[in-house]
């Protein structure tokens, strides 16, 4: 019921009406009664009861909802550890004052912080405290019958009347049949028929709120038990689902690597990518897929399949996504004596842009001796373009496929620092203990190679041959349990919401009595939960049908009642 709070402060027109109408207007909704927040004066139990009433009141639910939306804001503006840990660290490093303060307030992980959790847990406690009584009330309403007609139907929002030659009993019978046919729950009370329809609205509303709880539990469950890991795999290589095989790995608090990692394995047979060659979409992947062979369980049978960008492979509750692709140049490295120290080995490089300009590091760890015969390690900074624009063009690839591959290497020797016990990035050289090879110009020794080219390191230090290019694909393996529940909850929530917002719950009464002059007076009235144009419309239609069964009789000479000056005719298909 729309009105301003100013005209009738503190008291809603709704409740005012309900009081006017007595039982007739009651329980059209199961919304909790509002009470004024008077402080109790009765001991602990009184306080607890008071607190519970407050928590489950609409007003507090509303405030908690407001808090929830406000509380979600900082997480979108401050870098979040869960989304991008590097950015969060950068922020900490750059803000001496704000950093520690944010840390204390949990602002780097808002959505798992104590205060945010408190808001939504309170909200959901309130929600449960609201749903349970509402459900009982609703069940009660379903068992009961619509309340009888109020004494003065004229006070209802939609009203019509006429005089008819038919007997009151006939009219009531016809009305009952009509309402039943229109799927009202209808029955006769005294001199009138009462009908009600639209219970699905309440059911939908309850279903929606229950579905919210289901979604929250499913989401929380998923967060606690989920895991997510990445693995870069060269064509021909394989992977089996154990913790040590991952390049990086994140998991929920209750995740147990011994039990929750499904035992499966797969190997990448072939990555296949084709790209739009022309037009504004030049370079956009057309085909982008990985052909893999996988086996479920420890001793499963091998099965072949294809993983595409939006089509992950599902094994045993886990999903394997294809998330990236790149190139790995194949190199052969020989020492000064011609001994092969790296034999046609592929090293994955990381793409920098959508045309797969790539960079990385090639490392020779074992077996190399320098011209003096001393054991050393070799390192190369590698820069790779699948499609090189030609001499003089920028050092950026112009197309993602291998149209004109070019590899640029710069060479170092010494200690790679990879044996020091702690893992280093394998995509970057740690130059602290490396020395540059010098070219004839005294600068760092660099060379650009095409497939098949060999470069000779200065001073008889050996050769490097660019044998070819292999492709790699990056896979993300995730498992988020209960996502089926979340989806189910979401579907129910939408359906419930649609029911709740589109279905009108309304009551119709038909009264037929003999007037003083012996002519039957029919009165019909309708009441909706909110003022809607639909209620009078429907009442008009019902009246039209009933009027055919009980046609009008001539008016009495003097109308016993005065018309209400405030009455306005029903607008048809109004705004």
């Amino acid at each position: 019921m729309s009105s301003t709070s100013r005209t009738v402060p503190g008291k809603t027109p709704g409740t005012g009406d309900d009081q006017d109408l007595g039982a007739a207007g009651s329980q059209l909704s199961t919304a909790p009664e509002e009470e004024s927040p008077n402080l109790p004066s009765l001991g602990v139990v009184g306080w607890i009861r008071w607190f519970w009433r407050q928590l489950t009141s609409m007003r507090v639910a509303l405030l908690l909802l407001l808090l929830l939306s406000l509380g979600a804001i900082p997480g979108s503006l401050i870098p979040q550890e869960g989304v991008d840990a590097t950015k969060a660290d950068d922020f900490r490093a750059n803000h001496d004052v704000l950093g520690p303060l944010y840390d204390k307030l949990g602002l780097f992980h808002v959505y798992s912080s104590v205060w945010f959790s408190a808001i939504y847990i309170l909200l959901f406690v309130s929600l449960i405290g609201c749903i349970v009584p509402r459900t009982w009330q609703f069940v009660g309403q379903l068992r009961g019958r619509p309340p009888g007609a109020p004494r003065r139907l004229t006070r209802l929002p939609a009203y019509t009347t006429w005089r008819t030659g038919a007997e009151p009993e006939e009219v009531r019978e016809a009305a009952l049949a009509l309402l039943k046919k229109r799927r009202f729950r209808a029955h006769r009370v005294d001199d009138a028929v009462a009908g009600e329809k639209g219970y699905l609205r309440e059911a939908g509303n309850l279903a929606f709120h229950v579905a919210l709880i289901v979604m929250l539990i499913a989401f929380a469950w998923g967060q606690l038990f989920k895991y997510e890991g990445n693995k870069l795999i060269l064509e021909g290589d394989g992977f089996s689902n154990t913790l040590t095989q991952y390049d990086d790995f994140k998991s929920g608090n209750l995740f147990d690597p011994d039990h929750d990692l499904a035992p499966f394995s797969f190997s990448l047979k072939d990555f296949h990518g084709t790209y739009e060659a022309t037009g504004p979409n030049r370079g956009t992947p057309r085909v982008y897929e990985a052909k893999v062979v996988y086996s479920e369980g420890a001793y499963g049978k091998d099965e072949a399949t294809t993983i595409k960008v939006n089509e992950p492979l599902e094994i045993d509750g886990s999903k394997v996504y294809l998330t990236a692709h790149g190139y790995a140049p194949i190199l052969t490295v020989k020492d000064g004596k011609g001994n092969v120290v790296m034999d046609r080995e592929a090293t994955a490089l990381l793409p920098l842009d959508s045309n797969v300009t790539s960079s990385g590091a090639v490392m020779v760890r074992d077996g190399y001796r320098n011209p003096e015969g001393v054991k050393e390690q070799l390192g190369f900074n590698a820069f790779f373009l699948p499609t090189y624009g030609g001499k003089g063009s920028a050092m950026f690839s112009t197309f993602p496929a291998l149209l004109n591959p070019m590899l640029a290497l710069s060479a170092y020797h010494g200690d790679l620092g990879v044996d020091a016990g702690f893992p280093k990035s394998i995509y970057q050289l740690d130059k602290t203990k490396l020395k540059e090879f010098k070219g004839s110009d005294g600068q760092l020794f660099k060379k650009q190679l095409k497939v098949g080219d060999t470069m000779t390191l200065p001073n008889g230090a050996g050769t490097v041959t660019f044998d070819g290019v292999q492709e790699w694909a990056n896979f993300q393996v995730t498992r988020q349990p209960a996502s089926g529940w979340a989806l189910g909850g979401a579907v129910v929530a939408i359906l419930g919401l649609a029911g709740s917002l589109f279905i009108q719950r309304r009551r119709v009464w038909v009264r037929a009595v003999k007037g003083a002059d012996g002519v039957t007076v029919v009165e019909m009235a309708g009441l909706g939960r909110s003022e809607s144009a639909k209620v009078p419309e429907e009442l008009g239609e019902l009246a039209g049908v009933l009027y055919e069964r009980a046609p009008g009789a001539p008016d009495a000479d003097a109308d016993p009642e005065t018309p209400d000056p405030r009455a306005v005719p029903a607008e048809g298909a109004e705004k």
Partner: protein
Amino acid sequence: MTLAAATDAATELAVATNEHLANLSNTLIYSAMAVYTLAFFAYIAEWLFGSRSKVGRTAAALTADTDAKAKAAAPAVTVNKAGGTTVLERPQVVVRTAAGSRDVPDGPGAHGGTEKGDLYGRIAISLTVLAFAIEAGGVLARALSVQRAPWGNMYEFNITFTTVATGVYLALLALKKNIRWLGLPLITTVLLDLGLAVTVLYTASDQLVPALHSYWLYIHVSTAIFCGAVFYVGAVSTILYLFKDSFENKLATGGTPGRFANSVLDRLPAAASLDKFAYRVNAAVFPLWTFTIIAGAIWAGDAWGRYWGWDPKETWSFITWVAYACYLHARATAGWKGRKAAYLALAAFACWLFNYYGVNIFVSGKHSYADVGLGALQSVGF
């Protein structure tokens, strides 16, 4: 090398045709703006030449209302008198507004009930229809020129959004809803938005990023734009409600509103009607907005391996959703109906706007399309 040369030649050819389409699109958008401008003037004329009520319908109604209240002790009975001795087709239904609400009839609309004003109003609507058709053509040409849905950058968002918003307005008109009063504010903002689009936000027709191919993306983005347009219509009527409500309050408490307020606000529908309309619009689209977020989550699940990750765009969709839920709740909560609920509705729409514009401009996240696929690299340690 020959392969590269061949692709280059083919590229040039394709670029030429696409450029043609892109130019066509620009021409259409500019033409649409010109027609919208004409429509804008026609709406202004409707307001100017429509009657400026001197008596003040609202004031009259409000005083009549107090008279009625004085008589309220007498039984307020409504009887259908149309019958008489003639047989009527169908008994007439009489409606009563709820007790406690102001009983103000809707204003006659911008034209103020005058024929001249009405004529200008009709011209304005015809022009709006024409501009809408031209703009829709412009959006379509743009889509064809980039061979993808025209939602790749802010310019494209804006032209699509204004088209849909106008479309929603025209559709409601076609459904015979009483919303002609929305014309002037709507077209004004459409013009402003388009002006912003073609100057500040303009981006040459270009393929920026490899879009992820998933029909969920199309469902998600198109429903998001549609919801935004409907929320926008709701927000405009909420603002008008707030104005009209204070106007009515002022009259009811014996104040005298300024001449401008009298002339403009008196012609609008009653505050209660505006409020109801705003509520219906917002409530009707709220389930679709819920669906939009869920469709986005499903798509994120397919594309990124997690269905919800508190990415800024996701976060702000969630905030918007909760804010609209607040609004719906407020309308069912004593002490929050009316103006307070209206402020909540406006706050919710502000969240939606921020999600559309603010997040794209100020906050970076996965939804800034450019880094599709790079997320994986970061996790590889790059």
